């Protein structure tokens, strides 16, 4: 964005502040795409300083010195239109078919490479661009005076038979290499400040509202503002679209989640189906490993898949141990071991009795003196023998107890998760039945229970093992099947959650972007109409001149809307009542209105073109408006070189009648497209003719004639010197504004002469010697005129007029 425009934006931000985020985005967007991207990524930058803009200079300007055309349209052999560089009105008049428009069109083609008038016309129209009588060598050229560079020549030519689009164009600036047209830097400006206006364009000026908008908008230099708005809108749309696209994927994802019978899918769906999807919850579910949460069906399946029956070896060992223990017990019971242990117990009790009470009778059978020392010795030996016998029985008991304990360990109750319905393909009921049968082992009360238990193990274990192994395998398969179904969906869900979170984060900038856009839209409206205002004022002034008796009054001119609804709002009143501009206007009025807008636009400060070319503006105009037109053109010609091509005499007539200073050239065409140009009237000639007419009026009092006629003669010489001075100064490449200032400041004849001769108004003293060197009589005439302004002339006035004519011819010739 250019600094001046950025300044306007910053100033407006002070008046109507935006919040920090929105302002940051706005200013970044003013800077460009990259800056906006960075700001959207969260980069914070300093607010630019105001007042960085400098005054904004006018671009280097250019005037036309000549237009030469050869073999193009109505012109055969080379014809050159000589022009006076500098502000002024030149009317080029010629009948239809005289070739005058070929100069205007030639200039347009020369500079732009195309003819706007031809757009949309069929090839039949375009094919006649070469002159019939001179088709081999088509060449267009223009002499220019470039500000800062001096004289230059632009040229465009075609090879024999080459199509219109294949031309070569070059520019030769005095003292430089011949280069391409880009040296002038006019490509864009020829569009923005288009200095050409043809009658057909006048007619089409209002054909589409958006085109007229572009015509006006492009000269305001606000493209950067539009670009900034586009940039912000693109960022907003990208984010909104991103969010919308992710949102549009959600119903499909939810449907797929619903179609899968999986508790994780259900949980994800619950998390995402709400008004505000819980992305974090869904993502953590989708990312978790299967069965990480032990509760639920998956947890149960996992337990089922890990379920195992007691190992075969263990079961076998336990059964064997039970049987061996049973054998040992039986063996111990059959021997005297039990009796021995019982007897040893009895004898120990008797021995205790003997120790407590001493020798005596037998406490069991009553045999007297049975207990004595000898009995004691014998009994102790007997107990030792009996103890050995009973230890064997004890060992069998212990073995049976151990075997029973091992067996008990095998018969755990069925686990809880085995109860309950089938989980998919894993049906636990067979296994449960087998397990219950296994666990329902015989009791330990029966005398033969060791053998019974062993038998139970051997009989029930195979069924249990088979059922449990099958169930575990089924559960495993079911788990795997569920995993296969879920894994892609989990990946999809996780990916979607990631995208949704990213889109959501990006969309966080949307409210700020919207604020910035709204602010800019508002600003755009005001800024563009601020910039348009001076142009609109001029347009209204011109319209009031041109409209004459029209009852249509032009009010404010505003640019409204944007993109496809952009248009120029011409507020118009008809007899004081507001109306729709174009509906109520005649074609002539529309043309006048178009001209009212074209002129200020083509003469706006930013344009390098100090010339404008208007082709046939008079066609549909009321006679009274031609006078208005002449005065409007006179006004425009004060600061611009205005070239007007016209096919009838109404405009030249009005110029003569109103005494408007202008150069009128007549274009005529003879056989074979030989075109010649003849000056009909020049500013010098205008004065001389008036002087001559006064000489011829016998009724004019001599004293008045003696005062007025020398004054007119002096004006003629001044006009000649002024033209020469402009030429001289412009050829040096001086800034155009300086040239005009110098010319305007040279308020005396002598200063003008010095400016023309030496480029320096202060060298008035050198003027007479130079004139004397040219021709003695020229110096004499000059002296007479310089004095005559103040005193009445005493000599022959007729002679003075013819002397003046000779002097102006000499000036033109010497200072060419």
């Amino acid at each position, binding site marked *: 964005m250019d600094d001046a425009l950025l300044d306007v934006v910053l100033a407006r931000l002070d008046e109507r502040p935006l919040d920090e985020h929105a302002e940051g985005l706005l200013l970044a967007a003013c800077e460009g795409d990259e800056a906006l991207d960075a700001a959207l990524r969260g980069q914070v930058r300093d607010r630019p300083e105001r007042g960085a803009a400098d005054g904004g200079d006018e671009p280097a300007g250019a005037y036309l010195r000549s237009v030469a055309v050869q073999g193009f349209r109505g012109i055969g052999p080379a014809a050159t239109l000589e022009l006076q560089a500098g502000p002024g009105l030149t009317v080029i008049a010629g009948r239809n078919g005289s070739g005058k428009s070929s100069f205007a069109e030639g200039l347009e083609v020369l500079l732009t490479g195309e003819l706007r008038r031809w757009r949309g016309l069929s090839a039949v129209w375009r094919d006649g661009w070469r002159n019939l009588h001179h088709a081999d060598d088509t060449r267009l050229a223009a002499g220019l005076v470039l500000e800062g560079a001096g004289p230059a020549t632009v040229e465009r030519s075609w090879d024999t038979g080459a199509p219109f689009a294949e031309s070569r164009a070059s520019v030769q600036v005095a003292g430089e290499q011949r280069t391409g047209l880009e040296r002038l830097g006019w490509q864009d400006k020829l569009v923005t400040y288009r200095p050409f206006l043809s009658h057909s364009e006048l007619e089409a000026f209002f054909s589409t509202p958006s085109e007229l908008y572009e015509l006006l908008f492009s000269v305001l230099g606000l493209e950067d503002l539009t670009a900034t708005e586009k940039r912000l809108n693109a960022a907003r749309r990208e984010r909104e679209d991103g969010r919308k696209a992710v949102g549009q994927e959600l119903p499909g994802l939810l449907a797929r989640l619903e179609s899968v019978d999986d508790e994780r899918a259900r949980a994800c769906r619950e998390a995402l189906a709400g008004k505000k999807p819980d992305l974090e919850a869904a993502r953590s579910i989708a990312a978790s490993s299967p069965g990480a949460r032990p509760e639920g069906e998956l947890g149960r399946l996992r337990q089922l898949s890990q379920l195992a029956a007691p190992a075969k070896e263990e079961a076998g060992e336990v059964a064997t141990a039970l049987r061996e223990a049973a054998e040992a017990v039986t063996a111990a019971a059959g021997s005297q071991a039990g009796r021995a242990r019982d007897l040893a117990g009895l004898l120990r009790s008797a021995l205790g009795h003997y120790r407590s009470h001493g020798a005596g009778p037998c406490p069991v059978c009553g045999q007297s003196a049975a207990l004595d020392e000898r009995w004691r010795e014998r009994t102790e030996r007997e107990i030792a023998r009996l103890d050995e016998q009973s230890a064997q029985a004890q060992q069998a008991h212990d073995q049976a107890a151990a075997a029973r304990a091992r067996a008990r360990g095998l018969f755990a109750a069925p686990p809880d998760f085995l109860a309950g319905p089938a989980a998919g393909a894993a049906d636990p009921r067979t296994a449960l039945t087998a397990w219950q049968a296994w666990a329902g082992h015989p009791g330990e009360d029966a005398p033969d229970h060791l053998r019974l238990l062993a038998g139970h193990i051997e009989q029930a274990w195979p069924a249990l093992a088979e059922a449990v192994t099958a169930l575990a395998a089924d559960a495993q398969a079911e788990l795997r099947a569920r995993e296969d179904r879920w894994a892609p969906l989990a990946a999809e869900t996780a990916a979607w959650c990631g995208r949704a979170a990213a889109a959501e984060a990006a969309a966080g900038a949307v409210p700020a972007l919207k604020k910035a856009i709204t602010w800019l839209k508002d600003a755009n409206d005001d800024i563009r109409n601020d910039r348009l205002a001076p142009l609109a004022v001029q347009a209204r002034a011109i319209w009031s001149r041109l409209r004459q008796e029209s009852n249509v009054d032009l009010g404010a001119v505003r640019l409204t809307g944007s993109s496809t609804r952009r248009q120029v709002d011409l507020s118009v009143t008809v007899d004081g009542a507001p109306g729709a501009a174009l509906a109520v206007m005649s074609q002539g009025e529309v043309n006048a209105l178009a001209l009212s807008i074209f002129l200020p636009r083509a003469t706006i400060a930013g344009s390098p073109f100090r010339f404008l070319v208007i082709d046939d503006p008079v066609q549909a105009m009321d006679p009274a408006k031609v006078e208005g037109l002449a005065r409007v053109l006179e006004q425009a010609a004060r600061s611009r070189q205005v070239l007007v091509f016209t096919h009838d005499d109404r405009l030249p007539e009005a110029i003569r009648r109103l*005494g408007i200073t202008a150069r009128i050239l007549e274009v005529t065409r003879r056989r074979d497209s030989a075109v010649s140009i003849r000056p009909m009237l020049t500013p010098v000639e205008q004065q001389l003719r008036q002087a001559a007419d006064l000489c011829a009026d016998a009724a004019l009092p001599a*004293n008045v004639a003696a005062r007025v006629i020398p004054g007119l003669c002096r004006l003629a010489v001044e006009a000649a010197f002024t033209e020469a001075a402009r030429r001289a100064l412009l050829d040096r490449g001086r800034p155009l504004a300086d040239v005009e200032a110098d010319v305007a400041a040279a308020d005396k004849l002598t200063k003008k002469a010095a400016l023309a001769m030496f480029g320096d108004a202060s060298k008035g003293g050198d003027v007479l010697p130079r004139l004397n060197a040219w021709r003695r009589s020229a110096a004499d005439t000059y002296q007479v005129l310089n004095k005559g302004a103040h005193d009445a002339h005493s000599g022959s006035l007729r002679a003075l007029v013819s002397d003046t004519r000779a002097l102006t011819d000499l000036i033109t010739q010497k200072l060419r």
Partner: protein
Amino acid sequence: MLDDPTFASLGGWPRAVALLTRQALEQAIGQFWTTRPATLGVAGCSMKTQLTCLPAYLRPDLAREVSYVWAALSNACHYHPYELSPTSGELSGWIDTTAALLEAMASRTA
């Protein structure tokens, strides 16, 4: 004549108005010459001559404006093939301008 509707039924009134206005302007210019002895004779010259001489004695932009209006009135007074009569709007505009010019010229004569 412009305001009175009875004239509307008569053809040619626009030219009559233009003619009268031009006469008023010409008379004023004539009077302007007679206010000083040196220019007494100019009043008898053709209007074209008078207008050519005017800038030498009157403020140039004022003289130029007088010329514009006289030329416009003169054009309206003459019959031109294919041209229509001036409208009442144009005419009242010229009358206003003429009145303003007369006043301005009168103040410059002293």
